C-alpha cells in the first residue's frame, strides 16, 4: 500500500447506495468521493485523479457506457461497474469498452471491496509487469515463456500459451470472450466462443489440480474468464 489512502470515486445516482458505500469505504481505509451524475463523475475523475472508480451504469443524465468511454480517453486507472442482472449485454459492452470488473446489484459490501482490492493491485502490477507469476504450485515465466506445475514443465501449444499469458497478465481482471478471441485468434473470430471453450478446457486439464473446480482460470458465465488471484 502506498502512503496515502487510495481515493475511490463512486458515481451513482442512488443516494441510498452512496449512503452506505461512503462509510464502508472509509472504514476500510479508502478515501471515498461521490458523484451523483455522469457529468459530475467525469469532472471528479479529471480533478481528483482517483485510484479507482466505481461506476453505476444507470445514471440520470448520461449512459454509464458513455461515461466509461469518455473517462478512458484520459484515465487508465481501474473502473468497476455496478450493474443489474437484466443488463447483461450492457455489462459485457462495458467490459469491452475497458472496464476492469463488475459487481451485480444487489451486492454485499465485502464482495465489492474484494474486487476493488484486486483491481488496485492489478494497477500496481501493471505499472511494473512482474515477469514471473506464481500461484500455489503453478508458475508462469513471461520472459522465458515457461510454464511449470509443481516444478515440472508443462507443454502448451502457442495458442494455449497466448491465452494463458493474456489471462495471467490481466491479474484477476475479467476478460470478455470478445477480448480474448480478438487478441489470440484475431478479429475475424471475435464471435467464435467455441474456440475458447475448447482451449480453456485444455488449459484446465493441464494446469488445474482438479479441472472440475478450477482455481487458476475462473469462468464468468456468459461474460468471459478471469485469472484466479488468491
Amino acid at each position, binding site marked *: 500500500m502506498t502512503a496515502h489512502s487510495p481515493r475511490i470515486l463512486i458515481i451513482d445516482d442512488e443516494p441510498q447506495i452512496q449512503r452506505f458505500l461512503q*462509510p464502508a469505504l472509509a*472504514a476500510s481505509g479508502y478515501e471515498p468521493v461521490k458523484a451523483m451524475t455522469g457529468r459530475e463523475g467525469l469532472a471528479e475523475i479529471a480533478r481528483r485523479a482517483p485510484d479507482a472508480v466505481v461506476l453505476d451504469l444507470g445514471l440520470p443524465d448520461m449512459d454509464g457506457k458513455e461515461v466509461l468511454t469518455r473517462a478512458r480517453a484520459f484515465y487508465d486507472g481501474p473502473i468497476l461497474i455496478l450493474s*443489474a442482472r437484466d443488463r447483461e449485454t450492457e455489462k459485457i459492452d462495458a467490459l469491452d469498452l475497458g472496464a476492469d470488473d463488475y459487481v451485480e446489484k*444487489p451486492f*454485499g*459490501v465485502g464482495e465489492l471491496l474484494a474486487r476493488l482490492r484486486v483491481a488496485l493491485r492489478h494497477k500496481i502490477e501493471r505499472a511494473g509487469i512482474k515477469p514471473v507469476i506464481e500461484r500455489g504450485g503453478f508458475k508462469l515465466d513471461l520472459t522465458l515463456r515457461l510454464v511449470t506445475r509443481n516444478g515440472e514443465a508443462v507443454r502448451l501449444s502457442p495458442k494455449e500459451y497466448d491465452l494463458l499469458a493474456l489471462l495471467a497478465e490481466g491479474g484477476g481482471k475479467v476478460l470478455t470472450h470478445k477480448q480474448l478471441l480478438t487478441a489470440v485468434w484475431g478479429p475475424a473470430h471475435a464471435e467464435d466462443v467455441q474456440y475458447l471453450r475448447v482451449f480453456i478446457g485444455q488449459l484446465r486439464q493441464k494446469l488445474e489440480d482438479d479441472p472440475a473446480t478450477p482455481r487458476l482460470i475462473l469462468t464468468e458465465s456468459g461474460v468471459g474468464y478471469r485469472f484466479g488471484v488468491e
Partner: protein
Amino acid sequence: MTTGEPLRPDPDALLEEAARASRGRLKVFLGMAPGVGKTFEMLRSARRAKAAGEDVVVGVVESHGRQETQALLRGLEVMARQPMEHRGRSLLEFDIDGAIARRPALLLVDEYAHSNAPGSRHPKRWQDVAELLDAGINVWTTLNVQHLESLNDVVWKITGVRQLETVPDNALSAADEIELIDLTPEELRRRLADGKVYVPETARLASEKFFRLENLTALRELALRRAAQTVDDQLVGAMKRAGVEGPWAAGERILVLIGADAASSSLVRAGRRLSDMIGDAPWTVAHVERPSHPVLDEGAQQHLGTALKLAEQLGAAALILSGEDIVISVKAYVRQNNVTQILVGNRRFQRRRPFGRPSLTAALLEDSTGAALHVVTEAPQEQAPALPRRPRLAAGVNWRRYLSSAGFVAIATGIAYLLQARFADADLSMVFLTAVLASGVLHGLRPALLAATASFLAYNFLFIEPLYTFWIGSPANLLALFAFWAVALATGGLAGRVRDQASALSRHTAAITSLLAVSRRLSAATTKGEVAQAIADHVSAGVGGETTVLLPEGGEIAAVAGTPTLTPLGTSAMTAARWAWERGEVAGAGTGTLPQLPRTFYPLQGSRVRAGVVGVEHSAALTPEAQRYLTALLDQGAVALERAEFAADAADAEALRRSDRLRAALLNSISHDLRTPLSTVLGSATTLLDYGPVLEPDTRQDLLLSIREEAERLSRYVGDLLDMTRLEGGALVTRQEWTDIRDVLAAAIERVQRRAGNRRIDRDFPADLSLIQADPGLAEQAVVNILENAIAYSPDGTAIEVAAYEDRRGIVISIEDEGRGVPTAELERVFEKFHRLEEPSDRHKGSGLGLAISKGFVEAMGGQIAAASPIHDGHGTRVLISLPKPATPPEAAA
C-alpha cells in the same frame, strides 16, 4: 462414384420407398385376354390369405354367373354394392366409401379397367383403387393387357377391336406386384368353345374376331413382355435402393415431335412404348409453334390439347416450343437436353417444306445431333370411330363466315351486272376483287380463298364470252381470267392471313391486357377477401361463367367470394372442391374426379402453400389459349393470396413484438424498482456487519435508518403490485360502509407525514360533511398514493393542500401540489400503469403504479378521478376524486 467409398443408396429411391410404405400395396393379376382365369386365381389366393388369418374383403367381383367363381366367393366377406341411378336404369357399383370405412387389410377389386357409372366419384375404377391405396388399404385387382393405354393402338391393329376401357400405364407401374395369369392360346380357345369364357351377347361378333389364334398369340406376347418389364423395373428399383451401381438406362432421353392433328395421339403412345423399350427413359412430347402462324383452328387445338394431355398421363413431359424454323428449334432443344432418341411421324414431317428446303426428317437426319431418329408411320384415318369425339367448339361460327363471304361475291356479281353496260369486262373484275378483299379482311384466310374461287366462277359464267357457260372462248380471255383468279387468290390470301394474324395478336393482346389489369387489381387488394373477389371477377370474365373462390378457414375450406354472386356450393361440389384442396389436383368437370359436376375446381397453388380453390363453370371445354390464361390468372391469384396472408402475419408479428417490448419495459421497471432498495438493504447491512465496530455511532444509526426506509419502500412497492394484481384479476372486493371522508384524509396524511420532509400539508375540510357509502381502506390507499406522488414530484419546502367539499352529486377530494406540474400531453396518461414522469425531484422513485391503483380503487367505489395541471402560473398539479353521495345508491362491488 469413387472406388473404395461405399455406394450410398439413391435418396430418391428411398423416399419413394418411404412414400410407398404408408400407402397400400397393389397387386395386379395380369392376363392376355378375358377367360384366362384372373379372377379365379385372385379368389383362390384370397382364400389362402384368409385361411392364413388375413382380413380379406371382396369389394367387387364379377362372377358372370360362373359356378366355380361363385363357389370361391363363398366364405369370403363380400361388400354390398351401391345402387346408382343412370338414365332410369339402376346400376350396382363398387362402394368406395364403404370400403374406406371398412378398412380391410386386403380388398379385392375386380376389373381394373372398369368404367364407373356416371355420377360416381371417379369415372374409372383404377382411380378408385388409387384412392384406396392412398388410404392405406392393400388392393388386389385384375387386368387384361389390351386395356393398357399405350398398347391401345397396337391391340387395335392386332385385333381390329378398339378398347374403350383403358388404364393409364402408370396405373400399372404403381403395382407393387404383378402376377401373370398365363394360358396357351389353344387352351383359351378351347375354354371359349366350352362356354367357360363369359362374353356379353352384344360383343359376340367382335369376340369371334378377337379370339383368333394369331391375335391371342400376339396378346400373350404383349402380356409376357409387360410383366417381364415390371419385374425389371422392380429389380432396378431394388438395386437403386440398395445402392448398387448403374447403368440405369443412363442418359437416354426421348423427344417425341407431334403436330396438331389426329395422328398426334398415336405418336404419343408410340413414344411411351419406345420409352418402355429402352428402360423407362425420360421422355418429352413437344409441339413446335411458329410465332408467325400462331393460330391453329379449333380442331387442331383440340387435337394438340388431347395429345399433350395424353402425354402427361403416360408419364411424359409435355411442352410447346416456339420458333420460326422448326428444325432449328428442335436441334437446339435436342442439344440442350441431351436427347438421344427422336421420334417423328412420317406423314407430316416428310412433306417437303416451301422453297426447296428439305423436310424436317431429312434435316434432322442430315444434322449430326447424335440422336437416333425414329420415324413412325402415321395413319390419321386410324382415328377410329369408336373414340369419343369432343363436340367441336364454335363450328357454327365458321359457316357464318363462309356464308358472309359468299354473300359478298353475290353482291359484287349484282353490281358488276348493273355496271357491265358501261365498263369493260376487265374493269368489272375489280368489283370482284373488292369482294375477295373484303372477305379476307373481315373473315380471314379460308373464306377469302372461297370468295376468290366463287368470284372466278361467277365472272367467267356471267361476263366472259360465251356467256352463261364456264367455257372460255378466246385465249385473251383465258389469260385475263386466270390472271384474275391468281390475283384474287393472292389478294384474298394475303388479306386473310393478315386478318388472322391481327385477330390472333389482338386476342393475345387482350389476354395480356387482361392479365395486366388482374395484376394491378391484385396488387391493390390488401386483404385475402379482396384478393379472392378479384380472382373471382377476372376468372369469370376471362374464361367462364359463374366462379367461386374458396379459402381455408379453420381446417376447412369455405366459399368467400363469387361472381356474379356468392352462392353456396352443393354437397358434391364441396366434395370436389375439398378434393382439389387436399390433393392439389383439378377436380370436377373435364377431370377424372366428379366429372358430372358443372364446375371445374382448380387448386390455387402458391409458392409455398396451397392458398385456396377456385370453382369455374365452363360453358365448354377450354381452348389451350384460355387454359394458359386461366393458369396464369390462378398463379397470380395464388401468389397474391399468399402475399395477403404474409402481410397479415407480419402485422400480427409486429403487434406481438410491440407487446413484447412493452412487457420487457415493464419487467425492466419492476426489476429495477425491486433491486434498488434491495441493494441498499444488503449493502448497508453488510457494511454494518463488516465494519460495525469501527463506524461512528451516527453512521451506524444512519445505515439502520436507511435499511428501514428501503425495506418500507420495498414493502410499499410489493403492496402496490399486489393491489394492481387484485384490480386486474378482478379479485378486488369493496366493503362499502358509512364513511366520513375527513377521517380518511386525516389517516392518509398521517401515513405520509414522515416521508413529506419539509413539505407542508395543509387541510381544508368543511365543518359539516355528509357521510357517504365507501370502503375506507381503499379510499385511504387511493389518497395516500396521490399524496406520495405529490411529495415525489414537488420540491422540499412547498405546500400540499388537501381539501374536501360537497357538491350536488357527491363528495369531492382535491389534492394540490406546487411541483413542476404535468405537461398537458402527459395528463391523460398519468393514471396508466407504469407511467412515470421523467425525473421526480425526490430520489424516492415511485412504482409507477400509485395513480393507476388510485384510479382503480376510486372507480371500484363508483367514483371518478381526474388530474389538472398547471394550476398556478405554469406549475402545480391538482388531482380531484369525486365519490357519489348516498342519495345515489352505491354501485355493486366489482
